[in-house]
């Protein structure tokens, strides 16, 4: 029983990280119907920027987090402007391949000798680890901080999307891009903003993961990226609360299947869930059915 509770706590922490990444996937898909494969590498770049800020610049935890978020937001906007914007009206396959190309560029750029090199690095201990025991469960202060930051950001994002003028513009753009443009919404700005928000959240996830599991390497984004993508699909891609729910579900599924089924096969289980969901209900748990018109 105590292991189960402990694993649920761990799963929620991991899931909150997945949720942060999944939100970026889902927001971009909602606005321009694009699976941004480069997103998982923005997460990786975010982790490295946090590392850079904490070691080279010697900043504390919160300043490093903000530094990483802001730089990644700019990076995400730049990538969209340079690589995706010229292709906005071309077939889907072309755009998908471009995002894969961007993924490879980011990964191998960080891997290059003059940037970070291919070796793994250890994230510095920005906040000393304190473990609390509540009954049979152990929670570290880092886990609490990660969870708190995730919740604050999710609530802020929900407020931004649902209650503000900018959020209304974003929702209008995702509903019908052309009609929104006709109503006087600056589409390019909305899309840039979406990429910036998504990238900032991914950077947060990167720094939090660096803090929780202090190992950084250029390929660290691939597996969490794929899994949070599965999370986004699980909740219904394009729906922000769906991504949050999907992230938590994925985190729980992963930790529980590692403990109770098999540690090696937990990835296979995650992807089997993806395939089953896609076959049974392709729009995800929270999605609405969309009919194709001829």
């Amino acid at each position, binding site marked *: 029983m105590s292991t189960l509770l402990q694993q649920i706590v761990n799963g929620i922490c991991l899931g909150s990280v997945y949720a942060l990444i999944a939100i970026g996937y889902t927001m971009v898909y909602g606005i321009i119907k694009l699976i941004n494969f480069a997103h998982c590498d923005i997460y990786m770049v975010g982790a490295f920027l946090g590392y850079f800020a904490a070691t080279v610049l010697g900043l504390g935890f919160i300043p490093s987090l903000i530094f990483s978020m802001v730089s990644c937001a700019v990076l995400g906007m730049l990538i969209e402007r340079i690589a995706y914007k010229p292709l906005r009206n071309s077939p889907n396959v*072309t755009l*998908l391949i471009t995002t894969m190309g961007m993924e*490879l560029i980011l990964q*191998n750029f960080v891997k290059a000798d003059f940037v970070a090199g291919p070796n793994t690095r250890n994230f510095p201990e920005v906040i000393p680890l304190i473990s609390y025991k509540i009954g049979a469960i152990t929670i570290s202060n880092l886990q609490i901080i990660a969870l708190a930051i995730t919740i604050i950001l999710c609530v802020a994002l929900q407020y931004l999307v649902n209650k503000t003028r900018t959020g209304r513009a974003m929702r209008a753009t995702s509903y019908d891009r052309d009609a929104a443009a006709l109503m006087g919404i600056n589409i390019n700005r909305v899309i840039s903003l979406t990429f910036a928000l998504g990238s900032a959240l991914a950077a947060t996830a990167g720094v939090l993961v660096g803090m929780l599991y202090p190992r950084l390497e250029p390929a660290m984004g691939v597996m969490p990226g794929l899994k949070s993508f599965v999370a986004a699909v699980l909740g219904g891609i394009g729906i922000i609360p769906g991504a949050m729910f999907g992230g938590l579900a994925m985190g729980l599924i992963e930790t529980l299947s590692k403990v109770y089924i098999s540690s090696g096969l937990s990835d296979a289980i995650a992807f089997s869930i993806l395939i089953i969901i896609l076959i049974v209900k392709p729009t995800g748990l929270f999605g609405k059915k969309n009919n194709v018109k001829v």
Partner: protein
Amino acid sequence: MKMINKISKNENSTSLSLVKTTYTRYMITTVVLALIYVFLMFLVNQGIIGDYILRIMKQIGIFLIAALGLNLILGFTGQFTMGHAAFMSIGAYGSAIMTKNFNMPFPIALLVGIILAGILAALIGYPILRLKGDYLAICTLGFGEIVKVVIQNVDYVGGARGISGIPGSTSFLIVLIGVALCYAILKNLIHSSKGRAIMSIREDEIAAEAMGINSTKYKMIAFIIGSSMAGLAGGLYAHFNSFIDPASFAFSKSIELITYVVLGGMGSLSGTVIGTSILIYLPECLRGLSEVFKTYRILIYAVMLVLMMIFRPQGILGTREITVDNIIKFFKKFGKNSTKNIVQDEKAGE
């Protein structure tokens, strides 16, 4: 009666001549390929082509087979699949186990690999090919990862350590025959009525269904044939490299194959030949030239891929093909144009 006789005679003669021409065409192609092979082997024997170049040529051939299969799915049927390397791994593991653990002859092992990949494609293709666009891409991606993880966890096939010590029986001749066969199969398929049906799905699936084309059936045909070719390529690769592990057929390998197809042009067989040859040969030939290229090879690849998608998304050839007929036509047209220009120039001079 006479008329009918005449007509039937005519029909007979035309169909006969058609058979004769395609037959002679096959003969000519085979003879030309055989001559090229003999010539290359002569060069190898003379020491003009070293083992290193021969190895690269084999590698090009092997990945070309997989890329041709992918082009059938991606370029001709328009179904975006990102798990092609998984079928390569099935073919590779299937045939490697056959030769290593069961001492089967090499061709039978290859056949086992092809059949395994085909069966798996049929099993997985039936449920997932109903999905469209992005969803299909995600699903095939997930499938590729599942295959990798499952192989990593099965001890019988070596787990994450892979299989080593596979007999290196892939000769250049076998690779050449494999490429020629796959090319011929695809070319004939595409120019048949089934091929037209497959391409109509790419253009507009709903319209194709309205015309009475069973889109699921033709998607399945394309998927199974393409994946079996990946299985053949995997079998050849296993016996070429003598070592395979799950990581060598990861997601990045699928992306690499997609790059080959996209560079050459989706929907062009000769384009795939060009794309694969360039992308495999270029890094090898530049390796000697500079250290910079060697270290930043994948980075340069990726930049090239993105630039290409922005400036020439249809690839080098688009959907055009390079055939003997086309080359002759091109030169004839070229000649005509130049004479026309001369005539025009003369007129302008007057």
